[in-house]
C-alpha cells in the first residue's frame, strides 16, 4: 500500500514537471485581398496598393504578393470607374479627383491560389473646413514650450491623426535625460531607434462643429530628439479612424489576438479610407 501511494505521488510529481514548448505552426491560412487606398479631396485617387496576405513562417513569394491584373485577374473599380495598374509603382490609380463630402465605393475581385475572392468598401470624404492655423511653430524648448497645434475642424469629422516625425533624428540628438525612460543607453537605442523617431497620436470624437479652433498639444512622449519635426495631420473618416485604432492593436496585453475593425466586406482586409491632410513643422531645442 505504501509503495503504491509513493509510486502514485511520484508519478504525479513527474507529470507536474517540465516546461512545455508552444508551437503554433498548424494554423489554417485563408487567402485575403489586402487593400491600402486613401481618397483625399482635391487630389487624384492614386497609390492604391492591392496585395494578398501571406502565410507566416513560410518563404514569401514577393513576386506573388502584389495582385497584378494579368496574373490575378484583378478587376477593380471606384464608383464603377476601372482602376488602372501603374507598373512603375506597382499601384493602381484612376483619374478621378477626390471631392469633399462624397462617397466612393471600391470593388475588387481577384484570383488568389486558384480561389476567386471579392471585396468591397465605401468611404465618404470629409466636408471642407479642416485647416491648420499655423503651419510653422518655429523653435520650441523641450518641456518648456509645448507644441500646440491649432486647427479648425472639418464639420462632421471627429477623428484627427497626428503623424509626428523627427526629420533629422540621430543617436546624438536623442534626449537621454528624459523623465520617462531613465538610464536608456546609446546601445539600447540602436535597436529601437525608429520606435522613438516616428510617433503618432490621435484625437478621437472631437467636437467637429466647434465654433472655436481645436487644439492638440504634442506630448513629451511624442518627442524624443532635439530635431526638426514634421507633423502631418489627417482629418479622417470612420474607416480611417477604425483602421488606425485597431489594425496594429490586434494583440491584447494577455497575448490574445482580436479582429481589427476593417470596413471591407467579403474577402478583404486593410483600409479604404478618406481624409483631408495638412502639415506643420517645428524645431525642438534643448534648454540651456
Amino acid at each position: 500500500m505504501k509503495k503504491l501511494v509513493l509510486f502514485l505521488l511520484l508519478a504525479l510529481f513527474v507529470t507536474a514537471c517540465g516546461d512545455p514548448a508552444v508551437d503554433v505552426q498548424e494554423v489554417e491560412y485563408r487567402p485575403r485581398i489586402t487593400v491600402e487606398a486613401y481618397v483625399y479631396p482635391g487630389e487624384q485617387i492614386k497609390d492604391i496598393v492591392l496585395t494578398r496576405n501571406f502565410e507566416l513562417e513560410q518563404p514569401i513569394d514577393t513576386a506573388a504578393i502584389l495582385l497584378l491584373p494579368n496574373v490575378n485577374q484583378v478587376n477593380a473599380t471606384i464608383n464603377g470607374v476601372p482602376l488602372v495598374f501603374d507598373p512603375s509603382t506597382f499601384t493602381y490609380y484612376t483619374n478621378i479627383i477626390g471631392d469633399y463630402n462624397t462617397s466612393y465605393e471600391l470593388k475588387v475581385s481577384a484570383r488568389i491560389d486558384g480561389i476567386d475572392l471579392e471585396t468591397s468598401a465605401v468611404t465618404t470624404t470629409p466636408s471642407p473646413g479642416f485647416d491648420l492655423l499655423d503651419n510653422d511653430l518655429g523653435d520650441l524648448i523641450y518641456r518648456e514650450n509645448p507644441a500646440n497645434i491649432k486647427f479648425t475642424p472639418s464639420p462632421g469629422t471627429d477623428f484627427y491623426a497626428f503623424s509626428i516625425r523627427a526629420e533629422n533624428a540621430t543617436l546624438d540628438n536623442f534626449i537621454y535625460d528624459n523623465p520617462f525612460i531613465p538610464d536608456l543607453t546609446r546601445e539600447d537605442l540602436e535597436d529601437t531607434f525608429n520606435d522613438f523617431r516616428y510617433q503618432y497620436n490621435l484625437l478621437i470624437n472631437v467636437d467637429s462643429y466647434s465654433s472655436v479652433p481645436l487644439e492638440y498639444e504634442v506630448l513629451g512622449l511624442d518627442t524624443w530628439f532635439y530635431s526638426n519635426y514634421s507633423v502631418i495631420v489627417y482629418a479622417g473618416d470612420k474607416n480611417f479612424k477604425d483602421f488606425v485604432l485597431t489594425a496594429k492593436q490586434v494583440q491584447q496585453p494577455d497575448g490574445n489576438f482580436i479582429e481589427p475593425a476593417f470596413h471591407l466586406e467579403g474577402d478583404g482586409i486593410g483600409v479604404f479610407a478618406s481624409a483631408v491632410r495638412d502639415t506643420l513643422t517645428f524645431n525642438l531645442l534643448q534648454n540651456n
Partner: protein
Amino acid sequence: MKLGSILIVMLLLFHLPVSGQNNTIDMSGFVFDKETGEALVGANVFIKELNYGGSTNISGYFVIPDIPKGKYTLVCSYIGFRTFSKVYETVENCDGCITIELESEALQTEEVVVSADSINTIDKLFIKPVSKINLTPAQINQIPKVVEADLLRALQTMPGIVSLSDFSSALYVRGGTPDQNLYLIDGTDVYNPEHAFGIFSTFNTNAIKKVEISKGGFGAEYGGRLSSVLDVTNLDGNRNNFEGVFNLSLLSASTTLQTPIGSIGSLSGSFRRTYIDQTLAKAIDDVPDYYFYDTNLKAFFDLGKKDKLTISFFNSLDDLDFSLDKDAEESLSFLYDWGNTTASVNWKHIFSSKLFASFWVTGSRFESNFDFEAVSLAEENYLSDYAFKAAAEYYYSTEMTFKFGAEQKVLHERYDQISNQQLIQIENNRQHSTAYASAVWKPLPVWNIEGGVRMNYFNTDTTFLNIEPRFSLKYRLTENSNLKFATGYYHQYLNRIQRLFFSSIWATANKYNDESSSWHFILGYQRAIAGDLEFEIETYFKNYDNIYQYNENVATDIKPSYYDNNGRPVYTTTNNVFKSGDGKSYGIEFLLRKDKGALTGWVSYALSRTEYEFGRQNQGDAFVPRHDRSHVVNGVMNVDLDNVWNEFSGDAFETDDSKWTLGLNFIYASGQPITVPGSAYYINTLPDWNSLTGGADSSPGYGLYPAAINSYRLPDYIRMDVSVTYEKDYGSWSIAPYLQIFNIGNRGNTWFIQYNEEFENGALKQEIEKVNMLPLLPSLGVTIKF
C-alpha cells in the same frame, strides 16, 4: 401580479390553524458550539423515538413541527462534534426554547470515524442542495497555497470551478465568467473581491465561519447572477472565552481575535496587512511601494430566546505608489488604490416556533482611484449598493416548509475618467426589487421536492420585469445513493468590464444593454461508499441569452454625449461598450471526497465545453471563450502523518500534543484557448509612413491578421503543490510552523505568448516568447492559536 397574489395567499395561510394540530406541538431551538458559542449551521437534529427531524438553518435554528405531546430523546449530530442526546418534554409556546451545545471533537479521532450516531454520509449528501459545495475554514487552510491561504483559490480545486491563471483568484464556474458569480459576505454583496491585482481574494480565511458555493440550480432565495453564489458567513465570535489566531507568512501578518461581550453576545475581529512596503520596498528599488489590508469586525448580540442581532463590517484596501525610478527627482509614476467596504445589520426573530425570520440592512461599496500624472490621466471607479432584505421560513408541517422573502436594493454606479483629451462621466442610480417564495415538500422521507419562483424588477433608464421559476428534486434512490435534479431560470442586470491588472468596472443593464438570462439543468447522482466516502456525479447544461463581453474595439464605436467648455468629448453612457451574444455550457463532473479520518481530501474530474456566438465575430461562427477547459483533474489531500497508516490498517489512532500534517494539491487542466495570428499582410499604419523604414509600433509596413477565435490551445496546465505543517499544543495555546511549496515540479505553465516577428530567409518568422505563470515558489509561515 401573479407572484404578488401567491405571496398574499401564503402569508394568509401562515395564520390559518392547521387541522389536526391541536394535539401536536413543535420542538424548536438552537444548536451551538459549546466551546465558542457559535451557532452551528446544518446540524442534524432528530427525535429518536419518531425517527424524524430536520437540520439547523443559517442561524443554527431548528424546528421539528407537529409531533404528539410527550417526552422524546432529541439527538443532534454534526461533523467534528460529539453526538448529543437528551430527553426533553414538549412544552407549549416553546419558540426556540431548546438550546443544544455540542462539544468539539478532533476530526481525526477514531471515535468520530466509527461513531454510529453521527450523521450518515448519505444523509449529509441528501440534505445538501444540488451543486452546492461546503468548505470549512480548516479545509481551506489545509490546501497548499500561494503564500497566503485563499478562499477563492481553494474553491478553484473543486470540479466545475476553474481559474484563468496562477495570477488570478477569479472563479469561472461551469463556463460562467467571474461577473456571473454573486459574492456575499454576511448577506452583503461584494464587488471585485480582489487583492494584489486579483492574485488573492479579499476574504480573510481566519475570519470565516462557513463557506458555501452553489455552482448552479440555486433556489429562489438567491438571484441576480447567472452562474453561481458564494455565500460567506464570518465568525460571530466566541461567546465563552477570549481566543485568537495569529498568522505570519512571507507576505503578510494577520490576526483574528474573538471575545465574549458579557453574557449578551460576542465580538470577533480580523485584520490582515502585507508588509513588503515596509521591508523589501525600502531595500530594493525595483519593488514598488505596495500594500493591502483587510479588516473584518462582527458583533453578535443575544437579545433573548427569540431575537438575535449581528452587526458586521468589512473593509479592504490595496494601495500602490509606483515610481519607475524611486530615487529620481522626476520619474514616471502613478498612484492606484482600490478597496471594498461592506456593513450589515441582521436581526433574526422567531415569530413563532414555526415562523423564523431574518431582516438585513446592508451596504456595500467598491472604489478605485488611479492617477497617472505624466499623461494627465485620472480615473475614479465607484459602485455602491444599499439594501433592505427580509427572509422567512415557515415550518408548516413535517412535510411542508415555506420560504419567502423580499429585497429592495439601490445601486449607485459612477465612473469618471479625466484626461486632456476626453472625459468619461457615467453616473447612474438603479433600483432592484425582488421577491421570492418557495415550498419544500417532503411527501416521504425519500423525497424532497422544492419549487419556487423569484420576481425581479430592475429600474434603470428603462425597466425590466422578470419571473424566474426554480425547481429541485431529491430522491433517496437506495440506502446509499441519491438522485437529484434542479432547474432554474436566472437573470443578471450587471455587466463587468474586466481589465488586466486594473479592477473591473461594473455597468448595469439599460436601454442599450438588455438583461442577461440563463437556464440551468442539472442532474446528479450521489453515493456513500465505505461509510465515509462521498461520490458525486453531476451533469449540467446551461444556456446564456444576451451575455456581454467588453468591446475591445470600443474606441471605434463610442460617441460622446456632449462636449465640455474645453471642447473635450464627454461620455456618459455605456452604449457600444459591450458586445452582446449568446452561448451555452455543458459538462459532467465526478467528485470523490473524504472529510473524516487521518486522510481527507477529494479527487475530481470535470469534462466541459462552453461556446459563445457573438454576432459577426469569428465570421459568425461559434467559438470557445478563453476560460474553456475540456478536461480538469483535481486532487487535494491532507494527511495526518501520525495516523494515516493506522487508519488504513484499522489500528487505534495515536493521540499526541504534536502532529505532522502533509498537504498535497494536484491539478491538470486542458490548455487555455487562444487566438493566434493566422497570416500577415503588408500595410502602413499611416499613409505617409509609406516612405519610412520603420514605425513607432515596431511593425514596419505589415500587420498581423488573426486566425479563427480561440482556435489554438496553449499547452496543458499541470501543477503540484505540497505543504508540511508541524503543530504543537502547549495547553491553551498552540504553534504551527509550516512550509509550502507551490508548483513543486517547477513546471513552466504558459500564461500567455507574445510574438516578435522578423523577416528571415524571405519569411516572416515568429519568435514566440512564452510567458510562464508562477515557478516553484516556497514559502514559510507560522500560525499561533491561543
